[in-house]
């Protein structure tokens, strides 16, 4: 999703405690300006090629690799997890120096673990740079890392562009993830063959594809306890240069995996003043992996409840009803844990959700992940 300014904010506000303090240097001065001059832009459809496009696209200003998933242990305990790597270019071109440290690429990573049964949510955050190999993403083999938080492609018998088998290894302060993921569907290109528009005006767009269903197995360690888990993950990879429009305050994003092996991705970019000007878009992926775009007139999202974070005081939506009339579907989306708020250098809510509903009158269930940004006052 459109997290570009998020990263920028994160790198500035990494100081954390008081984001209101005005920086000595303006954001624009620091990051080469809001100016997008010199960067490549997502203006027209491109030909996606895998595994090449799993790698980094450093000529674009922002990029992220986003893993979320719902897991269940042998004893029935449920977990949700997130592992995200953000890349942010601070200049269009890398500096020319003799030092391997110097780079225009900064990285930021978030990991989170929702221990649903214990009602506990934990997360961690790291920063680094593309220089000296401290952080980076390569395509062949696929490898994304920030220090020892690493995602590695698992060796595979045959070379295939559609195959996506990776291992996530991340040791945070209070927990550790070791998960192996394997796709069963080809990557789904959102929007216009992967060119994903972010507003009604042309130009604000990103390249965006997903692996919407990744069979996941592995272990989760908390303190001295580890559990063997399995479940399903979702992978987003998106890159762009242009900024959010001034009027857009944030977004709600839904990744829904239904038990009938279909998936739905939806987002709503919220307009600051007038919700009728919100920009909505989505994708429907059938059991075979074929993706169909969903226009804003094909679905509606209604907020059914709210939750106020005791830690930050921010109020987030906490229950939704989603209608897809043309597909005869009504879905209720509920967080598996109320508090899945990321009080990282920028604040957002990213959490495992449970889905129930009806399709053509038959009950249908599922699970997924929801991301809510732009609610915190500091943002």
């Amino acid at each position, binding site marked *: 999703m459109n997290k570009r300014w998020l990263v920028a904010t994160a790198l500035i506000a990494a100081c954390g405690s008081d984001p209101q303090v005005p920086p*000595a240097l303006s954001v624009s001065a620091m990051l080469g300006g809001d100016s997008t001059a010199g960067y490549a832009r997502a203006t027209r459809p491109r030909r996606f090629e895998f595994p090449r496009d799993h790698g980094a696209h450093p000529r674009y200003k922002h990029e992220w690799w986003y893993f979320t998933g719902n897991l269940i242990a042998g004893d029935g305990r449920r977990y949700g997890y997130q592992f995200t790597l953000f890349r942010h270019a*601070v200049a269009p071109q890398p500096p020319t120096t*003799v030092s391997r440290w*110097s780079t225009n690429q900064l990285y930021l990573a978030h990991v989170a673990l929702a221990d649903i049964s214990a009602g506990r949510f934990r997360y961690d955050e790291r920063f680094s740079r593309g220089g000296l190999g401290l952080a980076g993403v390569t395509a062949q083999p696929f490898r994304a890392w920030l*220090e*020892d938080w*690493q995602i590695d492609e698992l060796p595979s018998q045959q070379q295939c562009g559609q195959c996506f088998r990776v291992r996530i290894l991340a*040791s945070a302060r209070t927990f550790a993830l070791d998960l192996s993921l394997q796709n069963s569907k080809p990557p789904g290109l959102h929007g216009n063959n992967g060119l994903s528009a972010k507003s009604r005006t042309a130009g604000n767009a990103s390249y965006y594809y997903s692996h919407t269903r990744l069979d996941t197995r592995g272990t989760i360690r908390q303190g001295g306890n580890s559990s063997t888990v399995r479940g399903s993950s979702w992978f987003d990879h998106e890159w762009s240069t242009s900024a959010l429009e001034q009027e857009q305050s944030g977004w709600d994003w839904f990744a829904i995996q239904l038990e009938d092996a279909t998936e739905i991705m939806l987002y709503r970019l919220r307009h600051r003043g007038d919700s009728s000007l919100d920009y909505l878009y989505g994708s429907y992926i059938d059991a075979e992996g074929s993706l169909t775009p969903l226009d804003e007139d094909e679905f509606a999202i209604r907020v059914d409840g709210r939750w106020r974070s005791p830690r930050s005081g921010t109020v987030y939506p906490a229950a939704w009803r989603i209608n897809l009339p043309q597909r005869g579907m009504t879905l209720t989306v509920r967080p598996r844990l109320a508090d899945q708020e990321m009080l990282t250098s920028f604040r957002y809510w990213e959490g495992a959700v449970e889905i129930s509903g009806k399709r053509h009158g038959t009950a249908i269930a599922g699970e997924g992940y929801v991301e809510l940004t732009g609610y915190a006052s500091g943002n």
Partner: protein
Amino acid sequence: MMPFVRMALRSLARRWPQTILSVIGIGLGIAVMLAIDISNDSARRAFEFASEGMGGQAEAIILGGPRGLDEDFYRQLRLRHGVRGISPVVEGWAEESATGIALKIVGIDPLALSQPTRQQDARGWSALTELVARPESALMTADAARTLGIEIPGDLELRVGNRRARIAVVGALPVQHEARANALRNVAVMDVGGAQTLLAMPGRLSRIEVHDANDSRRLTALLPPSLRLVPGLSQAQTMRQMTRSFRINLTALSLLAVVIGAFLVYNTMVISVLQRREQIATLRTLGVTRPEILATIMIEALALAAAGMVFGTLFGVWLSHALLQLVTRTINDLYFSLQVTAPAISNWTLAKSNAVGVLAALGAAAAPAWEATRVSPRLAFCRSHLESTTRSWLGRWAAAGLVVWAVAAAILWVSDRSIVAGFAALFCLIAGFALTVPMSMVSLMRGMRRLLSDSPYGRIATGGILASLSRTHVAVTALAVALSATVGVGIMIGSFRTSVNTWLGSYLRADIYVSQGTGRTNDGITPAIIAALRKEPAVRAVTTGRWVRFTEPGRILRLFVVDVDRYSFENFQLRKGEVTQAWQRFNERGAVLVSEAFAYHRGLSVGDSMSLPTRSGTGRFEVAAVFRDYGSDQGTVVMHRRHYERHWDDPVVDSVALYLRPDADSQALLAHLEPGMLKQSGLQARSNRALRELSLAIFDRTFAITGVLRLLTVIIAVVAIVSALAAIQLERAREFAMLRATGVTRRGLAGLLMGEGALMGLAAGILSLPLGLMMSMVLISVINRRSFGWTIDMALSPEHFLTALLLSVAAGLVAAVYPALRMTSALTAEGLRHE
């Protein structure tokens, strides 16, 4: 209690000239101690801030060889081992082109420790991230920018060795503390990448700082043999350790001032008690108990001390500004670069000096106060009894003095290397001496009496001094002790200077020394330059040098790498070891020379071996010889370049010594080299003579502070003697009035008073000489040896003794001026009537 307080204060007010002098005396003591304490404390704080760097105080530091360590190791720690509480540092020096101001370049990774708790200042952090984005960008404090005359943002032209570079100062480093601002005054902070590029050290880090104690434990197992993990506090600790001896010496000198000040209080109180024996007897008769008498005297002392505190604190704070400059300069000359501008005055420091001052004053008053309680409540008593008591005690005091001397000797015998014990012995020496002074003084006075027996004035004068021995001996002792300190310290400094001068003569044999200027680079003096220097027609031979510093816990080891030949090897004056054999081991077997200080601190002798961290782990090196060196009190190790390169893979040269042909003119060669080749390469050259003069100038600067302390001590002593003599003479008003009545002229009486003063001064001066000599011996062979590890050849010069004598006689004369004026102007009858 009130009547006693009132009596105490009234009695001080009544003797106001003495009171004022006492207050000055004790106040000066407190002031000197306070000023030294403040200076030491400010310097300590400054280097704590300086060593803190950017990322807060490190738990530990990973160090490599002379050229730092490979950055890949850092990456491996992060990526493979998940070590997170570490940060890289690249450090080096550059010179601002226009002003020539040396700038310390500190390269850091602003992202390395990015945990919310670490970053407290958003502005600071946002500026730091820009460093990564633009490698030529730097941050500095607003103060530093002002010093260099630039605005922020603004560009700086730098010279790094023979290269020129431009950096952009893009933001101001936030400063929370003034002492910290001083530490950052000559610092530019850059990204690691920018610093590596600027300093031409790609792929290298100066060190890795470890901020997490848990990590530092894990790291020990992960380090390859070429790297070392040292405790992180060691930066500040090392600095503290390095300057420890220096600071102890200053503190001891300041204590001496307090002791002299206490003597003054003692003196005042003794006289005060003696003068009031009759009054005390009356009080006892009226029913005042002994504890009440004691309290009255102690209240007087306390009041003196309190006034001394006020004066001492004010004067001490003022004095600390001056002393701080001296202390800082000495630390800069001898140890490391340090900038301190404002004294750091803590309540603790104030409390400490004042407490010592007050305790000294009360301690000094305790004996006379106790004496006062022994005054028996009789309706009559006689003074001669007191004087005869005093005389009967002389022998016992002298015996006690010998015992205290024996204690001093025992302390020296038992304590092996303790500096504090050395000073304890020194103070015992002084105390023992003070106890023997009265007896010596009596003998001296009797001798003088015989010499002056022809003159009635001479008989009266010497007789007067002897008759009031209970008063005079205290004053004479105080003056003698203070003067002996002057003599002792003077002889020590003089001997030291002579030794250093001799050493420089043999150590500096080359004609011209070329070294890197402020813009030191990692490349050092390039082979091309060395080759060019060799080709100069006037140059007969060239030797190269390289200084390498190894940080060890709490200390720094300095290795001097040379490529000397057999001829210049003789520049090293060997203290231990035979030169032919030493050369053979040094040249062929890679053995090292160690300086005297080094050998002392580490207990090394010829044939022992010592370890150094080489690129392949710890290497053992045999000690070929111990050589004389006053270059550093930390000590120096010397190794031949051939062997050094084998162990460290470091061809860098950072100094070159040129030996000229006999007919060559070194000034002409300097004039030829300096503006051309050397200046372009950022090198500086000094002639043998200039270097010697510089060394001696540094030596003299080092002892400037000692000189100041010495002067203050003498002032306190003179105040003491003036106060004491004045009191004694005033007390004898009746006797003098009688003399006037029996026909002694005013002039005659004035002459008598002045003569007595001069005699007492002379006695003190003569007595101070043997103690001064003994003190200098202790200072040279105990204090200096233990503090700095070097031996000094004693060099006596008559000037020290003559100065002491002149000073003492002058003090005695000055002391007699006031009583002489008063006695001769007072009416005879009134003098007679008043008791």
